[in-house]
């Protein structure tokens, strides 16, 4: 990154070499500056209005007892009150741990599985590649409302296809209600979410694998290196830097889980599958009276949690990358 900036910085804003006509040089410099500004403007306006300001506003709101509708006034200022209340709410903590479990479990399942499939589906010699890629990608195009409906139906204990199948082959003696059971609901949501989001991560991995030269595998095959060793000593070291980014995206996207919970369980049964984003949504838009200040405080804590997560993961990723590089020796 630094290299390119260095080389590009030698010309754009500095005057062209060998020019003698000062006025033109000057006007070109001014116009370059103007164009830079104009090119940045659309992004800056939207970014400011829809990301930066809302973030600051959320922090400010979190210190007020506010319903999101009336004007904010000094009377409603509660200082850290919302935060203290949050930390004493068992439901908040349950949502917190559920979110953490969801994020880690979801990522730990979807990433290795999608990497495995991406490796298979990028083999040059495989037949019907495009067909299979489309098949494993396709759940992601389903609207989340339908995903909820489909699985509510398929997992239904009375006439759903899953129970029918499991009973049919004798694996089950009694129908099970995966979504209606406190101990299984969250796990069912985790797995369905893996199914739904899988295609995106498969594409990420396929992109990462593009950077591994095919010749390395061909050499390895001639040397009769087994597939697992190929993966360990060729693939993994080559994709390690991108793996860090993909893992990060995977964890953070999983932290934001919302749609599958709403459409599958609405946080239930009881509160067994409550997650933070659902908790926020309930406080801000569902439970009367609306408590937007309280929801904002939750959002702020949520962002802090995400940040800690990202930093830990980033550190771990950096160390791992360094060590796999060493193992990978000359390849990396």
């Amino acid at each position, binding site marked *: 990154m630094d290299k390119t900036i260095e080389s*590009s910085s030698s010309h*754009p804003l500095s005057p062209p070499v060998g020019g003698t006509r000062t006025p033109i040089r000057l006007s070109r410099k001014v116009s370059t500056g103007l164009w830079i500004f104009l090119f940045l403007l659309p992004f800056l306006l939207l970014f400011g209005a829809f*990301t930066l300001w809302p973030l600051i506003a959320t922090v400010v709101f979190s210190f007020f007892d506010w319903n999101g509708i009336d004007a904010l006034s000094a009377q409603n200022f509660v200082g850290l009150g919302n935060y203290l209340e949050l930390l004493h709410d068992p439901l908040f903590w349950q949502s917190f741990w559920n979110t953490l479990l969801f994020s880690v479990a979801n990522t730990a399942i979807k990433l290795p599985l999608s990497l495995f499939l991406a490796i298979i589906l990028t083999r040059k010699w495989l037949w019907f590649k495009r067909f299979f890629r489309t098949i494993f990608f396709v759940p992601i195009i389903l*609207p989340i409302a*339908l995903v909820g409906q489909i699985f509510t139906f398929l997992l239904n204990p009375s006439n759903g296809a899953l129970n029918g199948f499991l009973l049919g082959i004798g694996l089950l003696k009694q129908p099970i209600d995966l979504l209606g059971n406190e101990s299984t609901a969250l796990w069912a949501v985790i797995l369905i979410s893996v199914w739904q989001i899988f295609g995106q991560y498969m594409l990420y991995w396929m992109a990462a694998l593009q950077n591994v030269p095919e010749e390395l595998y061909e050499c390895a095959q001639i040397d009769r290196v087994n597939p697992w060793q190929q993966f360990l000593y060729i693939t993994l070291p080559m994709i390690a830097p991108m793996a860090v980014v993909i893992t*990060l995206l995977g964890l953070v996207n999983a932290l934001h889980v919302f749609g599958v919970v709403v459409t599958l369980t609405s946080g239930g049964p009881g509160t067994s599958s409550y997650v933070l984003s659902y908790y926020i949504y309930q406080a801000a838009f569902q439970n009367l009276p609306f408590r937007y200040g309280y929801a904002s405080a939750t959002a702020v804590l949520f962002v802090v949690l995400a940040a800690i997560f990202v930093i830990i993961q980033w550190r771990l990723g950096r160390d791992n990358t360094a060590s796999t590089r060493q193992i990978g020796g000359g390849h990396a």
Partner: protein
Amino acid sequence: MSILQRWRRSRFVRYNLILVTLLLVAGFVWVYPFLWAISGSFKTQIGLFTSGASLIPKQFDFSNFQRAWITAGFSQYFFNTLLYSSASTAVELLKSALCGYVLARYRFPGRNLLYSLIVGTLFIPLASIILPQFLVVESLGLLNTQAGVILAFSGAAGALYVLLFANFFKGIPEELFDAAKVDGAGFVRLFRLVFPLARPVIATVVIFNFIATWNDFNIPLIYTLSAPNLRNLAVGMFAFQGENSFDWTGFAAGTVISFVPVLIIFLLFQGYFVRGLSGAVKE
């Protein structure tokens, strides 16, 4: 050499036969819920509940589509969604390409700050700031208008796209710019010269943004609360659930209508997409 090649080829045929069989089985299980939903859109109401796991309707009922398209107003929702997704994708493309280009090739005051802000907000749960965003659109007087929904969509995402473009434009060889400059190309001409080269990134942004906005539920729901005729398909489907005492097959038909365009976009751009990402996720 030819012996080696033949040996290899016969081995690959064997690999293929095994793998393709395994993939077909796994793939079938994987798409089963998807196929089941599609077949549901052709079943009769009673047929759906009695046929269980079967994928082939005993009796085809095409009135589901008619009901979804005309009675439930999906035609209106469809065109709304098409407008929202296309317009916001166009805005996303323009703003992130312009910004990414400048970030990649020029130095200006505040450049590092902008970079840090963009990367920093990449990992923030944006769903949690939806009310302040709502207040912005409200203060512009755009609530319950199509422009309001498009604006909210165009504002909500974008940081990732900017980074994708910036990384791509950084990789373009300097010589290309020098040559164009010798020919007298100015600032805008240079950009117009390299923009078409970014096809892989453009494809990535189009696929991501199109799918995300096409299926988005939150933004259209909140921004069109008092204007049902402005709903998109996802919100329309949600309403459909409530209004027509659970018309499952009509619902499935509505979904088939809603994902066909996304599937087409994916199939069209798939090839570019992977290349676009591989250049971009790197750093």
